[in-house]
């Protein structure tokens, strides 16, 4: 079952369509191809999950566009939200 929506193939953030717990498998589909990853932590429905390792200062992509910058290193499968994503680049 898919429990994550990825709008654009270039996205680094996916949106969960169910609640997940640490260790849960997250499945999604892009252009007919299936992908999966492990959730690193508990994440709520409609919140974002990192689809790959993201370095501090990297842009975070959703809808194929920049939605902001990573304010710390983000591990693949981690929750992306206000604690590690901001509109502005910070040092």
């Amino acid at each position, binding site marked *: 079952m898919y*429990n994550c929506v990825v709008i654009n193939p270039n996205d680094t953030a996916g949106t969960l369509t169910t609640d997940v717990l640490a260790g849960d498998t997250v499945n999604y589909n892009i252009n007919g191809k299936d992908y999966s990853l492990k959730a690193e932590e508990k994440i709520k429905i409609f919140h974002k999950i990192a689809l790959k390792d993201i370095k501090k200062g990297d842009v975070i992509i959703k809808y*194929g566009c920049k939605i902001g910058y990573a304010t710390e290193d983000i591990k693949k499968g981690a929750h992306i939200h206000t604690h590690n994503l901001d509109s502005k680049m910070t040092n």
Partner: protein
Amino acid sequence: MKFKGYRRPDGKIGIRNHVLILPCSLCASETARFISSQVPGSVYIPNQGGCAIVKADLEITLKVLSGFAANPNVYGTVVVGNTCEIVQADLLVGRIKELTNKPVEKVVIRDAGGTIKAAELGVKYAMQMSIEASKCVKEEADISELILATECGGSDPTSGLAANPTLGYVSDKLVSLGGISILSETSELVGTEDILAPRCKDEKTAERLLEIIKNNEEYFEKAGESLRDGNPSTGNKEGGLTTLEEKSLGCIHKAGYSTIMKVYDYGEQIDTNEKGLVVMDTPGQDVASVAAMAAGGAQIVIFTTGRGTPTGSGIVPVIKITGNAETAELMADNIDFDASAIIGGKSSIEEKGEELFELMLQIADGRKSKAEALGFNDMSMARKCNFC
């Protein structure tokens, strides 16, 4: 690709064949409703404005009302004036005649001798137009003559994931076939400046786009309000949205990925020769935004919603789509298209987009949308100033 419509004497093609009863002002609205109620199939527009307005708002009102009359979905118009309003019947008729050579008649309540006598005259005009309109025969037109208005309202987390991308697919497809699609709601473009400006056809268009977003923010600042403060809201953040860019991207996604060819003022006539994706400067209030795009000449509206909304338009069919399965079920009376299968991965944006495109063609050909079947003619107009 083709659709069937009514060719108007001004060359445009409509997908409906309305006789419009158009009040100049709030004072003439009830008499206009009274006239319309006597002529089956006619539509009237409740007009809350038209008087006690400043010059800038007179211009907006004339643009919207004359735009309605010129909309190709309208066969002809009976203008109803009171006597003393700022939007004088003669003024409005003059503006309509600048835009189109379609039939237009005028009734002024005081001149006629009150509502009953005005209604007698109005019904006579409307009845005659109704007969003439019924003689119009539909003809085939190329899809490139279709102007689609996109709108979103009552959004929730499913809007940005399913409903808006599905509409974005339809918008991009229409544009690729040579049609026109309109992106609106300037207040929801705030925060997407860096994304939208490079998508404009040229520098001039980008400058104009940035200008309408800036003017919109400044307008609210003058009144001591801010569009950015607390946006995304606490509720948005609780729901999973982090940045304003992300929230606005979900909204602009309903216009797909096409190049922005032109930026129009509120209610301005859309140039039918300038094909592709265009932007219209409208407020985020759904009904006032739809009104402006209908006035600009859009023949059809696709409206995405998360929580569900029943609104329609007397001028243009409004197709409602949602990505929220619960809303699709709870508000089945109001929702035309359910895109929620995308959320569970049971369907793709492309698959739902193709289905929605097909529904748009069916509705263009005459199938009624839910809001149309319910006879809804919601009306609202943007204003620069409060009533005087």
